[in-house]
């Protein structure tokens, strides 16, 4: 089927149970997912190596050999080692080997109190730091049952969308770079510089901002915030048009991406793949619509799906989502209310500094928060947000003390990597590069 004959990506205004009844939205049935699950295996490196050795011994080896792709490799998007069994240029089997970037973030968070642990959350998915902050903050706030004021809610949505654009720009640049379209990389990073300037303006740091904290925002938004962000948002749609002009109808791009790396809906759900990868397979699952957080139910935006689940569709879905992110950010910026930027509960957020001089309670709250920190009740909370990679979840367990007993990140990249063997079996190694880039893994959150 030529690209002109393929159905265009669909836009869904909202996903509710009634939409499921219409012809447009159809979730795979559990029977399909079960059937797909029974066909799929995710091999470990040991299995690939041993299977190849067994075939070599028994003489049925057909020129295939096991090679390492990575961990140092320009196209594996970080320190990812793929143990690939290749027969010429065709991938026979492959197994991802991860753990090269494991720094024990989850265990370190158990040693720090809830407020201090937020700086570690930036470093998991380092391309979407504010979204990681947000998921952790939401999980802790759910434990605390803490109310966030409207200004902070809207600012959180705005920063989530700006971070999403940031993440997608890096995805676009590196994906194009892997397929040798180097100009797109430079253009994407030019826009990213503007975003990093905005982050530096608000929080002081370009990337590892720790700006969204349990209880609200770290600091209030600066005076120049609105015009700076407005300038960026006005500029962005034409820039996205530029990227599309370079790639969408480009015959080389289409040759490399159409029909490559197909992952259909049932396989994706069996493998736990979420986010744009799942939406490109036709399943309109977006955490912002399914489990709204931070007031997302009040914004008007679409969930974009495509039908074929190949690399080209994932590209189209993410480009359209970049435009939607600009749209949501614009709505947030227009509706940014005045007011406090953090909760007024003094047990969670410190009082304003001036009050300490004349109020004993404020002084005590300040003292307790700085020396000990807040203590959520015993319990656990699992909260999810839509990150640039899929459903990012944070599972926090509290034992009533000031330090999290366990904090686990459901990292979408870690789970999506399980789809690589299934997608690339029997295909060319050049297609493997394209598929891996289109899944958009970030090794920081794979390994934590």
């Amino acid at each position, binding site marked *: 089927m030529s690209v002109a004959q393929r159905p265009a990506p669909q836009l869904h205004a909202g996903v509710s149970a009634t939409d*499921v009844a219409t012809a447009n939205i159809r*979730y795979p049935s559990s029977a399909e*997912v079960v059937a797909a699950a029974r066909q799929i295996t995710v091999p470990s490196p040991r299995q690939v190596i041993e299977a190849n050795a067994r075939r070599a011994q028994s003489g049925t080896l057909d020129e295939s050999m096991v090679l390492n792709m990575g961990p140092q490799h320009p196209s594996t998007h970080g320190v990812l080692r793929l143990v690939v069994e290749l027969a010429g240029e065709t991938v026979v089997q492959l197994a991802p080997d991860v753990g090269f970037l494991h720094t024990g973030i*989850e265990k370190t968070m158990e040693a720090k109190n809830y407020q201090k642990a937020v700086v570690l959350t930036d470093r998991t998915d380092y391309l979407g730091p504010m979204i990681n902050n947000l998921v952790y903050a939401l999980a802790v706030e759910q434990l605390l049952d803490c109310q966030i004021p409207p200004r902070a809610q809207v600012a959180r949505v705005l920063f989530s969308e700006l971070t999403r654009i940031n993440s997608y720009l890096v995805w676009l640049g590196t994906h194009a770079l892997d397929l040798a379209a180097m100009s797109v990389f430079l253009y994407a990073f030019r826009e990213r510089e503007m975003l990093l300037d905005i982050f530096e303006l608000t929080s002081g740091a370009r990337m590892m901002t720790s700006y969204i904290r349990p209880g609200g925002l770290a600091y209030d938004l600066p005076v120049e915030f609105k015009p700076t962000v407005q300038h960026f948002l006005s500029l962005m749609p034409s820039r996205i048009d530029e990227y599309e002009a370079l790639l969408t109808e480009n015959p080389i791009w289409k040759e490399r991406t159409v029909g490559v790396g197909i992952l259909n809906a049932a396989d994706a*759900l069996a493998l*736990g793949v979420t986010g744009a990868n799942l939406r490109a397979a036709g399943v309109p699952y977006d955490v912002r619509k399914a489990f709204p957080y931070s007031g997302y139910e009040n914004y008007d935006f679409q969930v974009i799906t495509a039908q074929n689940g190949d690399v080209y569709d994932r590209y189209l879905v993410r480009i359209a989502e970049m435009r939607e992110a600009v749209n949501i950010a614009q709505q947030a910026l227009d509706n940014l209310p005045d007011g406090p930027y953090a909760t007024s509960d003094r047990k969670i957020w410190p009082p304003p500094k001036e009050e300490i001089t004349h109020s004993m309670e404020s002084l005590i709250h300040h003292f307790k928060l700085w020396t000990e920190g807040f203590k959520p009740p015993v319990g656990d909370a699992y909260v999810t947000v839509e990150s640039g990679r899929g459903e990012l*979840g944070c599972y926090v367990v509290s034992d009533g003390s000031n330090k999290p007993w366990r904090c686990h990140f459901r990292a979408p990249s870690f789970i999506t990597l*399980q789809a690589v063997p299934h997608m690339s079996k029997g295909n060319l190694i050049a297609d493997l590069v394209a598929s891996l880039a289109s899944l958009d893994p970030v090794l920081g959150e794979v390994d934590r």
Partner: protein
Amino acid sequence: MALENAAVLERVQARFGQAVLGTGEFRGTLALQLRPDTLPDVAAFLREDPELQYILLANVCGVDYLGREPRFEVVYHFTSLMHNHRIALKVGADEDDPRVPSIAREFPTATFQEREVYDMFGIIFDGHPDLQRILMPEDWDGFPQRKTEPLVYEEVAFTFNHDEIDAQKPYAKE
């Protein structure tokens, strides 16, 4: 068509009365404490039942509740996309022989996640295709995220203590 926690609980208990050891609802999420050997059946039921349809296994993670019996716990979060509903299953594992049946063959998404729980906590998943370490090097000894393991193995060297630390290194004896 929205699912309620009470309805889900009733449906699961009607089918698996013996398996559910305890229930909890904290901040709106239903959590079921299960008998370990019943986990594959309950997970399959949650996925295949026409009323429930929890087709996405979102998260598998381990927790070390040191001082509690059973010491370890593996938590599974299932999502029903059709109903926008989430449920948590919790399975306990003993300290001496922590074993939990694996669901990786039926839910391939659990393959890597069960390997991570094994790597970090030492819980063996019976029936997993290949339970190899995933984050730590293959020849690592120990299970890092257990509460009995230390956070750091070496003291951090600064200029004021660098010479003391250097003197205790193996190469300093020469």
